């Protein structure tokens, strides 16, 4: 059920820390779950040639990205015995110290939840058409590239 529903992944701006607490709270009624794994991506104040990153402005090929997110979910649910999985990714400007990615996987046991969470993060980073403009304190910018 949970895995069949098309999910809205993108949120405008930073992901509020309260969202994480709410997500945990909303799973307390699902008593077949024994473990959650959470990954939070946070904007780092990288230094490049003496300038410091103050924010990342995210954009995406949204229609394709939604399809890819869906495919990643389908594969994850076939590979791992997870109860549910939730992904949220920011679009637009996210300042350093704020959250841009929230992956939340749940399972009966810890190993599966952790492995599935890692799987989602790696797949998202390599396969989803999301682009990031690193904005420096002087408002100049460079384009981010995942390694």
């Amino acid at each position, binding site marked *: 059920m949970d895995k069949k529903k098309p999910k809205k992944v993108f949120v405008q701006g930073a992901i509020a820390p309260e969202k994480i607490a709410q997500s945990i709270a909303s799973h307390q009624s699902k008593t077949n779950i024994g473990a959650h794994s959470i990954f939070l*991506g946070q904007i780092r104040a990288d230094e490049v040639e003496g300038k410091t990153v103050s924010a*990342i402005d*995210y*954009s*995406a*090929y949204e*229609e*394709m990205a939604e*399809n890819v997110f869906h495919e990643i979910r389908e594969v994850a649910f076939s590979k791992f015995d997870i109860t549910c999985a939730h992904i949220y*990714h920011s679009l637009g400007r996210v300042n350093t110290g704020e959250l*841009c*990615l929230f992956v939340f996987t749940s399972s009966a046991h810890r190993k599966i939840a952790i492995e599935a969470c890692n799987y989602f*993060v790696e797949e*998202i*980073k*390599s*396969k*989803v*058409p*999301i*682009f*990031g*403009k690193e904005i420096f304190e002087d408002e100049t910018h460079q*384009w*981010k*590239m*995942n390694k």
Partner: protein
Amino acid sequence: MKVTIKYFGMIAETANKTEEVLDVAQGLWAMELKDMQIKKYGIPDPEAVQLAINRDLISEVELKEGDEVAFLPPFAGG
């Protein structure tokens, strides 16, 4: 035949546009279109540019009327 081209991230910035509709020759291959646009706008690091045709990450394909061709710079999610 007409194809819609979408540009993203650094490529959109270099081309100074996010979308255009081009009238191209019948039988044009996606890779040929890629070369054309890279030359036209001077898009840097062409090897890092991936194409998506109708939202699928493929480029070894002959284009058809109405196709949506996206020029994608390196991904940076997360």
